[in-house]
C-alpha cells in the first residue's frame, strides 16, 4: 500500500538527520512547572513525546492519612495551586458526603460564588500562560492584572491570596465580609469589557490562530479513552460537565442556577455570536477550541457569580459551621467528583471510624489530560509542543500531588 502524504503517520523530511533525544524540562520556561518531556526529534519534527512526572511529588495523600479532614484542607490548596478554592470544595464535599452533612442554603451560594471566581482566576492564568507559550507576553500580564482583583477579593474573604483553606467541611471558615458583594459586582462590571481585549490579542489574532488552529487535534473518542475532562474534553465536542452531569450531592449546589455547558453543538458554541466566529482553520478538538472553551467558561462563570450574588443576598441563615478539627468520621467510604477548572477532580476517603481517614486518594484531572500529550504531539513541530501542552493547561502540583 502506497503511503500518502495525508497519512497522519507520515513524517515529511528533507535531509536525514539522526534522531535526537531532547529533554524539555524539568527546567524549561514552558512546561508549566517541573514537567519533563522527552522529545525524540528528527530535525524540527517531533516523532515521539514522553512526559516524565514526579518532580513535585510531596506525598499529599499519605499526609492526608495522618491528619484529620480539616487539617488536610491546606494540602488540597497545594494540589491545583491555581484553583485552591475548587480543591477545597472537592475535599469538603467528599467529607460532607461521608458525614452525610446537609449544607445551609447560604453556604451553598457562597461556595458557588467563590468557586466560580476561582475558576475565572484559574482560566485567566491558563489563558495568559498560553499566550506566553506562544511567545506573546502582554496578555499574560493583562490576565494577571484581572486575576489580582479576584485575589484581592479572596484575600478580603479569607486572608490568603493563593492557599486559601477557605471552604471547609461544614461550610466555610468565615462569612463574606460586609461590602464584599458590591466589590465583587464592581469587579465583574469592570472585567466584562476586558474579555474583548483578550479576544483581540489572542482568540482572533491571525498568528494565534495560525499557531493553534488545527494543531494537536484530540478526537472525542480519544479524549474519552484517556479520561480527559474539563475544557480539554469539552474542547473536543463532548457535552459533559459535572456541574450538570455529576452526582446530586454536587449538582445540587447549582440548583436554581441557569447555565449552559460550553461545548460546540451544530458548529456553534453557546454565546459565541457575541464573539468573532470560530475560524475556518480550526478543527474541533484542536488547541484553539480548548482555549476558546476556557474563554467562554470565564463568561459563563461570571454569569454564575452574578446569579450567586443574587441568591446569596436573598438567602437566610448562616454560612455553615465548620466541622470540629477532630471530628469523628463514620466508618465507611466516600468518593465525589467535582468540576474543577481543569476538569474532573475526584476525592476518595475511607474511614475506619476514627477522626483520621484510613485512606485518602485524589483523582486529578491534569494527570489524565497530560497523558494524551504523547498522542497529540506525534509528528508535530517542536514549536507545537508548548502550544499543545499549554492548551491542556496542566498544573504539576495536581499531577504529582
Amino acid at each position, binding site marked *: 500500500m502506497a503511503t500518502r502524504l495525508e497519512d497522519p503517520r507520515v513524517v515529511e523530511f528533507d*535531509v536525514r538527520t539522526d534522531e535526537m533525544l531532547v529533554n524539555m524540562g524539568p527546567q524549561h520556561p514552558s512546561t508549566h512547572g517541573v514537567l519533563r518531556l522527552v522529545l525524540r526529534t528528527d530535525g524540527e519534527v517531533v516523532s515521539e513525546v514522553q512526559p516524565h512526572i514526579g518532580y513535585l511529588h510531596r506525598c499529599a495523600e499519605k499526609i492526608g492519612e495522618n491528619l484529620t479532614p480539616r487539617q488536610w484542607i491546606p494540602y488540597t490548596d497545594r494540589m491545583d495551586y491555581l484553583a485552591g478554592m475548587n480543591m477545597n470544595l472537592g475535599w469538603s464535599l467528599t467529607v460532607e458526603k461521608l458525614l452525610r452533612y446537609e449544607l445551609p442554603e447560604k453556604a451553598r451560594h457562597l461556595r458557588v460564588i467563590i468557586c466560580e471566581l476561582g475558576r475565572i482566576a484559574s482560566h485567566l492564568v491558563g489563558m495568559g500562560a498560553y499566550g506566553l507559550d506562544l511567545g506573546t507576553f502582554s496578555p499574560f500580564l493583562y490576565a494577571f492584572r484581572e486575576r489580582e482583583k479576584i485575589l484581592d477579593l479572596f484575600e478580603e474573604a479569607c486572608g490568603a491570596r493563593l492557599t486559601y483553606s477557605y471552604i471547609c467541611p461544614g461550610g466555610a471558615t468565615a462569612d463574606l465580609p460586609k461590602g464584599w458583594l458590591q466589590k465583587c459586582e464592581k469587579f465583574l462590571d469592570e472585567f466584562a469589557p476586558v474579555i474583548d481585549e483578550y479576544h483581540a490579542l489572542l482568540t482572533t489574532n491571525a498568528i494565534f490562530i495560525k499557531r493553534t488552529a488545527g494543531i494537536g487535534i484530540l478526537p472525542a473518542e480519544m479524549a474519552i479513552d484517556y479520561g480527559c475532562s474539563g475544557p480539554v474534553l469539552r474542547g473536543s465536542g463532548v457535552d459533559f460537565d459535572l456541574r450538570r452531569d455529576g452526582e446530586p450531592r454536587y449538582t445540587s449546589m447549582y440548583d436554581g442556577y441557569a447555565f449552559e455547558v460550553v461545548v460546540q453543538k451544530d458548529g456553534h458554541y453557546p454565546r459565541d455570536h457575541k464573539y468573532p466566529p470560530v475560524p475556518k482553520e480550526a478543527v474541533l478538538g484542536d488547541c484553539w477550541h480548548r482555549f476558546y472553551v476556557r474563554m467562554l467558561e470565564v463568561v459563563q462563570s461570571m454569569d454564575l457569580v452574578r446569579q450567586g450574588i443574587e441568591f446569596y443576598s436573598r438567602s437566610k441563615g448562616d454560612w455553615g459551621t465548620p466541622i470540629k478539627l477532630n471530628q469523628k468520621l463514620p466508618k465507611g467510604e466516600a468518593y465525589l467528583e467535582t468540576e474543577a477548572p481543569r476538569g474532573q477532580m475526584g476525592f476518595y476517603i475511607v474511614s475506619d471510624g476514627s477522626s483520621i481517614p484510613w485512606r485518602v486518594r485524589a483523582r486529578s484531572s491534569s494527570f489524565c489530560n497530560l497523558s494524551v500529550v504523547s498522542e497529540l504531539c506525534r509528528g508535530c513541530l517542536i514549536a507545537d509542543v508548548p502550544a499543545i501542552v499549554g492548551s491542556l493547561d496542566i498544573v504539576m502540583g495536581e499531577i504529582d500531588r
Partner: protein
Amino acid sequence: MIGAVIDWSAFLFYLFAAVACGFALAVVLSNHIVHMAFYLTLALGATAGLFLLTGSQFVGAMQFMIYVGGTLVLLVFGVMLTAQHRFVSIRTRAGEWITAAVLGGALLMLLGYVAWAVPDWHAAPPAHVPPEQVESTSRLGLALTGVRMDGGSGYALPFVIVSVHLLVVLIGAGYLARARVRVSDAAARKEMP
C-alpha cells in the same frame, strides 16, 4: 620619518592580505570542519576587503552578500547537518600531507614567480585616476544588459546564460535534496505486530 612608511592603503592591503592568506592556510591545516568553515568566512571576508581596496566596491559588497552571507551560511548549514562526532575531524594520512605540501609549495613558487615576472604588473600605479574610471557600479549594471559606453562587448548573453544556469541549479538542488515521504519510526513500530 614614520609618516612616509605608513601608507594607509598599503597598510590595509597588508592587513587584509595577511588575514586572507593566514586564514586560508588555517582552513587547510585545521582538521575540525566547523573551525574550517569559520576560518573560511574570515578569509573570504578579508578578500572582500581587498576587493574594496581596489575600488571594486560592487564586487566587494557582492562577495559579502552572496559568498559570505549566502554560500558560506549554506555551507555551515550543511556542516551542521552532517557534523556528527565521527565526521567533525577526519584525519588525513601523513603521506598525503607531504605530497600535498610539496606540490602545493611548487605551485605556489610557480605562481609567485609569475606574479612578479611581468615588470608592467609591478610598475608604479597611475598617480591620478579620474573618479569616473573608478566608479563602476552603473557601468557594470549596463554592461550586464549589453550596453557598454567604453566600446567593449556587453555581457547580456552571459548574463542570460548564468540566469538560466541558476534556475537549473535551483531546480536541480531542490530535486537532489527533495523531500521524501517516510513513515515515522514510532508509527512504524506501532504497525508491527
